[in-house]
């Protein structure tokens, strides 16, 4: 198939449909509106159902109901809307329901702004709602990667019965890039024998639930979920390593910021400084081992986490590096985007100090 020019949000929506998503429940919020708009047109064409809910709270609970009924279902929103969805997300994680949640992140806190940001990293990777749980968090750096990851996200969700979040900054949602909708390899998935479809001849009734009133049973449920998370950590880490060979400084960056950092790396090279990048594609599970390995490379003097936030992923980088090398942070926030020039200057400052 030839490459086509697609806007990020619309490409994400089409990728979901190609992955077999037939139900979408959402609520308008900038900068992700093209996702529900596209779905409202396309889903009826493929025999699916788009519904605009009265709120993000209702939308995520419709997702809960539809996922529990066995459907491939998605919702999307942006930062303040994702905060509203957190109640439903923790119930979905607790009841072990598969679904895909897209967060096209904008500046915060509060109403914040509508320009690209990465300041929902903590919320996405450290839980977000109450209780012990994790989402699988996928962070594309291009629209092509978003298209591929969205399709895989549904399989990951079904395989582990766990919600998967696509964490894209506002740039991923709003820019246009050439995209090829290639056939994504489908996983062998278990049948949804647990779904509440109505008995339809089945002997035992199915119950979708996250309530375990007996504390011992509630702990057992948590332990079971965390066995699943251990499997996800073992099997599902995705990461890009770039230019690490002989690097003096290793950048950590995800999403569109990683592409800006690559420009900075090229600029540094012209000035005779070798720099590399570790780009986590899964933010949870986090590619800890890649960072530790880089920290043990003799050439590496320091790490620099570059983010569109006040410093969130940098904490995971520090934990991964285990104090073996110093970890620095540079970020812009509130919708401001770091420039390659500023990143180059920051790297030089660090190497000057570290030498």
């Amino acid at each position: 198939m030839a490459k086509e020019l697609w806007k990020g949000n619309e490409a994400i929506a089409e990728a979901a449909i190609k992955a077999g998503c037939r139900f979408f429940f959402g609520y308008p919020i900038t900068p992700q509106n093209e996702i529900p708009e596209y779905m409202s047109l396309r889903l009826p064409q493929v025999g699916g159902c788009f519904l605009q809910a009265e709120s993000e709270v209702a939308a995520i609970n419709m997702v809960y109901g539809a996922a529990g009924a066995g459907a491939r279902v998605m919702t999307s929103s942006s930062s303040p809307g994702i905060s509203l969805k957190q109640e439903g997300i923790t119930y979905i994680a607790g009841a072990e329901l598969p679904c895909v949640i897209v967060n096209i992140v904008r500046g915060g806190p509060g109403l914040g702004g509508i320009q690209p940001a990465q300041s929902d990293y903590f919320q996405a990777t450290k839980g977000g709602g109450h209780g012990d749980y994790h989402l699988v968090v996928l962070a594309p750096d291009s629209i092509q990667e978003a298209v591929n990851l969205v399709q895989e996200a549904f399989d990951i969700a079904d395989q582990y019965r766990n919600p998967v979040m696509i964490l894209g900054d506002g740039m991923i949602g709003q820019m246009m890039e050439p995209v090829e909708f290639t056939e994504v390899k489908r996983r062998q998935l278990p049948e949804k024998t647990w779904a509440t479809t109505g008995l339809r001849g089945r002997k035992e009734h199915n119950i979708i639930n996250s309530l375990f009133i007996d504390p011992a049973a509630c702990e057992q449920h948590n332990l079971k979920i965390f066995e699943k998370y251990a499997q996800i950590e073992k099997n599902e880490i995705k990461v890009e390593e770039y230019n690490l060979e002989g690097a003096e400084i290793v950048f950590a960056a995800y999403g569109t910021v990683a592409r800006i950092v690559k420009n900075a790396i090229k600029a540094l090279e012209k000035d005779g400084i070798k720099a590399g990048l570790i780009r986590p594609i899964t933010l949870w599970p986090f590619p800890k081992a890649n960072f530790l390995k880089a920290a043990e490379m003799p050439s590496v003097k320091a790490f620099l986490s570059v983010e569109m936030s006040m410093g969130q992923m940098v904490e995971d980088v520090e934990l991964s590096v285990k104090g073996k090398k110093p970890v620095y942070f540079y970020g812009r926030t509130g919708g401001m985007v770091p420039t390659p020039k500023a990143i180059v200057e920051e790297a030089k400052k660090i190497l000057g100090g570290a030498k």
Partner: protein
Amino acid sequence: MAVVFEKTKGLTDKPTHYCPGCTHGIIHRLVAESLEELGLLDKAVGVAPVGCSVFAYDYFSCDMQEAAHGRAPACATGIKRVHPDSAVFTYQGDGDLASIGTAEIVHAAMRGEKITTIFVNNAIYGMTGGQMAPTTLVGQKATTAPLGRDADHAGMPIRMSEMLATIPKAVFIERVSVHDVPNIIKAKKAIKKAFEIQMKGLGFTMVEVLSTCPTNWGKTPIEALKWLKENMIPYYPIQNFRTPEEVK
């Protein structure tokens, strides 16, 4: 020996946790019998709320989901849109439906979701220990209204059936009570009718059931039934608010 009465297949054998004298048990039976008699048990999916009936998923023998507090109508929307031929119901108390879940119930009704809501109104928060509900009567004592509900401070109790009956696609709205046998029989008829209308695909259906809470009202079961009759019914009249022309 001739069998004159059998427990409905719509309920499991699990002993319920309800307090002695609570009328949830009766209402569960009426819903389950209605589903069985209409032949819907095999394609029914119920949604339990948060509140006293939170464990309803263990008591109904059909497929069940447990929703977050107040969100049962949204959850039921998701289920019904995925399986349009199924019989989907929510079973919600007055804290769940008339307080935290007002947006969800109003908009499910507005969209005309083809579901049936069983709204159990006992004018108090039961599970959490007797706090004031939006439905608590003026002067009625609650743990968060120790001197009785003061209308000037806490407003007037909300009449959900009257409100929802103003919504065009809320096609069947009826308030019933279970404080005596004639009313229990009427309640069953209303619940059955609501499911029939749902299956005809005519729109949103709700039966509000006035119910007792002897424990948190501080009354014996018999006193509670009397209190319901004398205090709740004057403010929450038993009546049909909406019935679609097709089934009149």
